[in-house]
């Protein structure tokens, strides 16, 4: 059955491949790889032929490569040192010789003027850690001039680590990413090739990939690109060939127990995309959800930003605890789901949309994730919440009863609605004051500071920008950013320039605060009072018009004040809306500069005052204190007082079982 499905898929993708020719990328690093998986030894032996083009303005006589898997070679690597610092018990998974590595067995180059064997040397550009072998440099016998190419042949042996993050194996499950010597980026006339860090890994150039993978025949393979050939070998193995133009990385997976499903994404305004799903045998009931989430992402991000340009996409439902779930690679991403989930959790849609959204913010807009993680994860988090809100609406609070390792009895509390942005605000609130967005990802003090500045703060920043600038301007900005920077490497300033191009005012002040200041935004209405207006007593007027008065006056029956406070460190202008008891309203704008400001009003008594009444400033870490009634009422507290009382009474009666 699986064979039939594979052949059908082959036909579908071959036709797709033909139509996808001519993607507008500059082909800098193209790979031809021949690799063989040994599932017993957990190794992949390969030969890679790289064609690299110098698109800089200066010649280079060096080539730099990532050897990502060496991050799992020993406990002293930069990746594992950082991980052990952030996560308890991290190294335990490698205890039973679960270490991984990538050995370069030989390397040779041929350019216009030379042909030579190369001597690789390890480099540690980020931290000087002598035990880290994740970056390798070779000197060429002659420089490669701008516009010229060099071909490098590399024999390598990669060993996959046990349950390592992103790439590795668990049992007979293999997810093979960051597995071959991958060339760095020659940019601004220098090599940008960072070591593999716990929290960042992506920055590479586009090119064409042509990869042949040989695995034992019982394995089902999924990979970036489209399968263009499948040949059964005499030794009970099979060689599958995957090809794709204009991608900047290549990952694949092999597992005997994958189930396969194929569907086509179709939309009148967008190109069709063949979707191939590799799912776990006990996740059949989620097939519609995986496809649905992928379709929603391709649809909404395609309409809002740019159409997904490839003819196909592979969705991998990664094995539990394999470490591979929730990752993105060009034309392929991994997701996962628990065997039982609560409806309110909106899983697997949430994770699937996020990883699929990376096809845009990573796959297409290939920013430097090492140095500007927020352009990658921040935009993805923002786009995910926007897509989820549009396609699925709010989720709900959910919990797992008898939870052991995520397994238990899931339960949705439908009376506790949860906007997609709620969890982003929640996390940002707790970590917002830690560090700034403008930083390399490995320089953060801890993983929470990294998470806040790579995911949450930028996502809320983009929501706040969208709400402040209005949908029309925002649509233009996002469309311009994604279309101009597709298949390219934007920097933060490139995005800021586009915002300034379309926004009614220069927004440098905003980005300066956001990118370089730590802290949160938090405004509060802290006090409201309305008092009977002071009587008009004494002399009023001058000269002949001077009159001695003692009356209520004409204009005001009440004098009111509203106190607003800036409780956070970051200052942004906000709106204040005051509603009076006669139904009238008054709108004000506050620069938010002073720590406290008092607004005075005359007229009817105030009913309530709300700061940021339309919830534009999603960066506000505590929206609870944004609005206040002048008079308290006891309904809500009675409701919650009695509910809590009931819970305690029931608990007492439960405990009586022990009596």
């Amino acid at each position, binding site marked *: 059955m699986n064979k039939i499905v594979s052949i059908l898929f082959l036909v579908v993708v071959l036709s797709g491949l033909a139509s996808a020719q001519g993607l507008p990328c500059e082909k800098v690093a193209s790979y031809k790889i021949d690799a063989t998986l040994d599932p017993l030894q957990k190794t992949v032996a390969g030969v890679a032929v790289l064609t690299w083009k110098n698109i800089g303005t200066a010649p280079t006589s060096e080539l730099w490569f990532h050897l990502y898997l060496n991050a799992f070679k020993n406990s002293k690597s930069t990746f594992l040192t950082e991980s052990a610092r952030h996560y308890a018990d991290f190294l335990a998974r490698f205890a039973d010789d679960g270490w991984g590595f990538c050995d370069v067995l030989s390397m040779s180059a041929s350019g216009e003027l030379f042909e030579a064997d190369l001597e690789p040397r390890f480099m540690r550009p980020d931290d000087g850690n002598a035990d880290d072998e994740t970056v390798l440099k070779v000197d060429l016998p002659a420089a490669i001039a701008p516009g010229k190419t060099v071909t490098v042949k590399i024999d390598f042996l990669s060993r996959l680590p046990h349950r390592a993050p992103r790439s590795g194996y*668990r*049992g007979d499950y293999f997810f093979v990413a960051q597995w071959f010597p991958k060339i760095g980026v020659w940019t601004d006339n220098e090599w940008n090739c960072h070591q593999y860090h716990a929290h960042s890994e992506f920055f590479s150039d586009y090119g064409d990939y042509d990869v042949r993978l040989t695995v034992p025949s019982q394995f089902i393979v999924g990979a970036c690109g489209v399968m263009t050939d499948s040949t059964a070998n005499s030794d009970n193995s099979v060689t599958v060939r995957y090809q794709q133009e204009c991608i900047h990385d290549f990952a694949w997976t092999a597992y005997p*127990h994958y189930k396969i499903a194929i569907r086509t994404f179709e939309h009148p305004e967008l190109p069709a995309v063949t979707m191939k799903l590799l799912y*776990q*045998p006990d996740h059949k009931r989620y097939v519609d959800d995986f496809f649905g989430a992928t379709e929603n992402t391709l649809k909404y991000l395609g309409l809002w930003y740019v159409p997904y340009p490839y003819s196909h996409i592979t969705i991998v439902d990664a*094995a539990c605890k394999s470490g591979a779930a929730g990752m993105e690679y060009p034309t392929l991403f991994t997701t996962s789901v628990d*065997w*039982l989930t609560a409806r309110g959790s909106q899983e697997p849609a949430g994770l699937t949309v996020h990883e699929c959204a990376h096809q845009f913010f990573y796959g297409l807009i290939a920013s430097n994730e090492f140095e500007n993680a927020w352009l990658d994860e921040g935009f993805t988090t923002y786009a995910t919440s926007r897509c989820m809100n549009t396609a699925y609406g709010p989720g*709900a*609070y959910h*919990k797992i*009863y*008898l939870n052991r*390792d995520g*397994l*238990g009895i899931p339960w949705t*509390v*439908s*009376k*506790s*609605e*949860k*906007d997609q942005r*709620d969890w982003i*605000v929640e996390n940002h*609130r707790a970590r917002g004051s830690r560090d700034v967005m403008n930083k390399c990802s490995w320089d953060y003090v801890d993983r929470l500071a990294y998470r806040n500045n790579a995911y949450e703060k930028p996502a809320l920043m983009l929501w706040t920008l969208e709400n402040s600038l209005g949908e029309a301007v925002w649509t233009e900005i996002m469309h311009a950013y994604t279309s101009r920077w597709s298949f390219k490497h934007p920097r933060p300033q490139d995005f800021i320039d586009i915002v300034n191009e379309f926004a009614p005012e220069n927004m440098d002040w905003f980005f300066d605060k956001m990118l370089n200041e730590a802290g949160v935004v938090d405004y509060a209405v802290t006090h409201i009072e309305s008092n009977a207006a002071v009587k008009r007593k004494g002399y009023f007027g001058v000269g002949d018009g001077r009159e001695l008065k003692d009356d209520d006056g004409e204009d005001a029956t009440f004098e009111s004040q509203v106190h607003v406070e800036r409780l956070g460190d970051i200052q942004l202008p906000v709106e204040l809306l005051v509603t009076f008891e006669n139904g009238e309203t008054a709108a004000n704008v506050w620069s938010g500069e002073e720590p406290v400001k008092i607004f005075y009003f005359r007229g009817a008594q105030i009913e309530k005052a*709300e700061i940021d009444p339309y919830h534009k400033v999603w960066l506000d870490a505590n*929206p*609870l*204190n944004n*609005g*206040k*009634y002048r008079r*308290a*009422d*006891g*309904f*809500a*507290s009675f*409701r*919650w*007082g*009695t*509910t*809590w*009382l*009931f*819970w*305690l*009474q*029931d*608990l*007492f*009666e*439960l*405990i*009586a*079982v*022990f*009596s």
Partner: protein
Amino acid sequence: MKIRDAFRHGLSLVNHHRKMIGIIYLVNLCFALIVAAPLFTLFHSRVGSLVGRDELLTGLPYSWWSALQIDARGLENTIRPSLSGGFGPLIDNLELLLTGQFQLYGWFVFSLIVGYLFIAAFFNGGAIALFADERRSFSAGRFFSYAGTYFHHMAALAVTTVALFALLYKVINPAIFSLLDRIVGDSLSQSFAWIVHFIGYLFILTIVFLITLILDYAKVIVISEKKNSSWASIGLAAAFIFRSFGKTVGLNVLLAFLAIALVLGGGLLMSIITPSNLLLLVGSFIVQQLFIAAKIAVRLTFYASETALYQAHAAARTMVKKRKR
């Protein structure tokens, strides 16, 4: 005596002494109010004047709750979204029976439930003694006097129960799950792992059932037989259950179904009511309180039916002994 007869007899005993339900309910309410009242005031000062307070009538919006966590103090930390559903409070509590994490809601709540444990033990003596008494009329005086008379036995048995449960939660439970984790091992199938865990919880539930079964009959025996040693009564209870295994277990399974039916019915009713106005708010409060009273009645039905079953068997044995003589 058949299971069905013991059950019916138990129901009629509880019905005859239904005033007892009222007394225990009032004590339960007052004891809970001691802490609920200050929490009510605290919560009032926090949400009484906030915009959006009306949303709190129909549920607990996640964003509200999450923001409330910022500076929630003491008992406020135990307010959580799961309380807003009809079933939430009940399931949250039931889960504790299998996990034993009674300190989950802080040491203050923990000390309250320990206090209530002894109050419940006090009333158990009165209740079981009245059920065992041939006189069918309820008298508050006799109820309290019996409660006082048997308190030392009931307290000793309660402490024994707690000790057994502590052993279950701290030693047996971790041992079972570490064994089960080893069975799951490196399996990539989540459904397999889930089923193995489920079997683990079924096992724990069985132990919970057996401990309460034995200790319930120990209470019945120490009072019915006027024993001096509560420890000896545990042995006698175990022996009795062993001898009449089908009936004792069957009766308690039937009673457990009654309790489950109550939880399902009550939970459903409370899920339906959304207290969006004052009338519904009061209505939902009344339903909650009726549920607590019904729960007390069900617990008393356990004791009454068990007493009826035990006494019928004891009487039958005495007859046999007499005849043999």
